[in-house]
């Protein structure tokens, strides 16, 4: 089969092809998207109103009437209408150009029109036709306001004029097209002459205002706008002044108050150096034993401090810190037991070591069992550090050296550690505690290397040491136990006041 035949077949196939569609459902979806019917009642009532006004004016103005034949009247009016029409035609374009984006109202023409019948000596009407042309946003509306001093039957005039006017509206007002469809209608396939369809958008009569009124409103609006702008500017100025004032206050404060305050939060890992001594010689074997048994593990530190700095470099710091030490105890305990067992009780040998005789019976056996235990114990401390020092700032970095006292306010140590072998049961219970509940003063020092990360935040690292002056054991106890700390603290400082 040739391709052209195939093509024709395909074309035939699709020529009037339909695909079933639920029209009702489709319509329900489509309807909200469609344009709504435009209300044209305003035009109607506007024209009716215009007519009535015109009629009333004509009735009021026509005091004396001249009766003429009705056929002549209609002829005369036809002429009048033509003249009016010309007038409208000529003026219409100008108004349309002028009134693209604004509301305008013009009295186009108010002229007495003399009729041919006057020349002929007939009693003819003298018309004053005033046509107000209005437009809004490029859509024109013509409001007819006919003042007639008619010496004939006015009602005929008024019947004709609105009709003509509406024709003008229909023929002249905008035609709204869209790009594609305009092209499509203009394209070659339509041989039918394209009629002119008109679609007049009419301004809301309620919104039509006089030129003076409009100008007045515009002026008022402009004034209001200017006032608003001025108010905004004023407010902005005030805000700026306030900001400036705050900055100045800060500067002044800085001059008179050279101190800056920082909140310092730090975490650190430390190593506790454990020192043990025997107060009495009898305890020395015990100390030796304990040194073997007890291993110091890591110590963790967490502290919050307030740091006050003077611009000259002087620093003092105070706060509170918490320290927790972990120790491993490896206890070895021994258990002995004795029991009877059947077996060889006696062996008799000769000089050469050969067994001559063996005696059997019950024998006593002594056993010693070694028990190893691993216990992790923690010791908690709460301290109040008070330090003074000096700092030096260098660009974003600063160095701070601090030294002071670290007052221990609380220490908690699990008691039964050294009683694991139940050696010191009785003498230290009750009124004679083994450990102090607070160890008192220690000396501390650190060297902070800090770097600013934002305007307010600073991070730092600080090698740290603390030497406790007092042991944690009481004098009642024959052992002397003391801890010193060495570690590295990492912290974050937040500037609270500068």
């Amino acid at each position, binding site marked *: 089969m040739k391709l052209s035949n195939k093509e024709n077949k*395909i074309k035939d196939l699709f020529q009037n092809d339909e695909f079933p569609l639920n029209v009702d459902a*489709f319509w329900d979806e489509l309807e909200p998207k*469609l344009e709504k019917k435009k209300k044209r009642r305003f035009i109607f009532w506007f024209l009716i109103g215009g007519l009535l006004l015109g009629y009333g004016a004509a009735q009021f103005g026509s005091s004396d009437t001249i009766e003429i034949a009705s056929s002549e009247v209609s002829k005369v009016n036809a002429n009048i209408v033509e003249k009016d029409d010309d007038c409208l035609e000529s003026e219409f374009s100008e108004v349309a150009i002028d009134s693209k984006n604004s509301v305008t109202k013009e009295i186009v023409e108010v002229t007495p029109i003399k009729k041919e019948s006057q020349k002929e000596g007939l009693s003819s009407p003298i018309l004053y036709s005033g046509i107000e042309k209005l437009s809004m946003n490029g859509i024109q509306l013509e409001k007819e306001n006919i003042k007639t001093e008619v010496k004939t039957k006015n009602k005929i005039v008024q019947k004709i004029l609105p009709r003509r006017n509406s024709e003008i509206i229909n023929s002249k007002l905008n035609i709204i097209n869209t790009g594609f469809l305009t092209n*499509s209608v203009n394209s070659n396939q339509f041989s039918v002459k394209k*009629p002119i369809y008109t679609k007049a958008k009419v301004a809301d009569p309620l919104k039509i205002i006089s030129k003076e009124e409009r100008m007045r409103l515009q002026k008022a609006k402009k004034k209001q706008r200017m006032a608003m702008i001025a108010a905004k500017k004023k407010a902005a100025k005030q805000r700026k002044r306030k900001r400036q004032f705050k900055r100045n206050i800060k500067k002044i404060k800085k001059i008179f108050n050279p101190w800056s305050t920082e909140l310092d939060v730090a975490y650190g890992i430390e190593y506790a150096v454990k020192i043990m001594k025997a107060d009495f010689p009898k305890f020395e074997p015990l100390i030796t034993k304990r040194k073997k048994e007890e291993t110091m593990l890591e110590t963790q530190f967490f502290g919050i401090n307030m740091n006050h700095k003077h611009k000259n470099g002087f620093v003092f710091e105070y706060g509170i810190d918490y320290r927790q030490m972990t120790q491993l105890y490896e206890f070895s305990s021994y258990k002995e037991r004795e029991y009877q067992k059947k077996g060889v009780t006696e062996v008799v040998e000769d000089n050469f070591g050969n067994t001559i005789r063996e005696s059997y019976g019950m024998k006593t056996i002594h056993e010693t069992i070694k028990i190893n235990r691993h216990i992790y114990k923690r010791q908690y401390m709460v301290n109040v550090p008070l330090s003074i020092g000096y700092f030096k700032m260098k660009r974003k970095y600063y160095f701070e050296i601090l030294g002071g006292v670290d007052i221990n306010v609380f220490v908690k140590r699990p008691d039964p550690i050294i009683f694991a072998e139940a050696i010191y049961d009785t003498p230290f219970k009750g009124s004679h505690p083994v450990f102090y509940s607070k160890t008192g003063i220690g000396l501390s020092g650190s060297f902070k290397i800090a770097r600013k990360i934002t305007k307010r935040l600073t991070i730092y690292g600080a090698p740290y040491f603390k030497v406790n002056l007092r042991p944690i054991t009481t004098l009642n106890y024959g052992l002397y136990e003391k801890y010193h700390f060495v570690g590295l603290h990492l912290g974050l400082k937040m500037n609270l006041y500068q």
Partner: protein
Amino acid sequence: MKLNSLISKAIEHDRVAQKTIVSQFAPYLFAVCKRYLSHADAKDALQDAFVLIFKNLHQFNATEPQFQYWLRRIAVNAALSKIRKSSYKSELYLDTDHLEKTRTPKVIDDLETQDILKLLNLLPEKQKQVFNLYIIDGFKHKEIAVFLEITEQNSKNLLFKARKTMQELILDSEKIRSR
């Protein structure tokens, strides 16, 4: 109700008249859209098309066949706009079952047509669109150029290529069938 009076009423935004037009032409236009788009997208395109139709109906004044042609143009344009917007990979969406029901057997041998449509789907995108627009919808190159935003000569070239490819494809398929 005559079409002209329907149109004039629809211009006045008479919902009854508009619905009548929709019910009369929607299945036809839906079939047109469906040739370019999937079912759901075709429905969207059809909605767009009807919105455009009622918006611009006042520009139309001709007889019924021309009206149908006018509607078809709008529907095709709506479908192509949809493709352009979503860079749609169009296929010839053809409900063959439906065709079998609605077509009279005398018009065409269905099987062959289906084969051709399958072959059409093998064409490159633009060639397929041009083929579809020119052969099936009967648009001129000038119009196709506007639709697809290409030059007229380009449209001709694409059609030539499409035809050539189709020729080869048909010959191949006939050879296979003869075996």
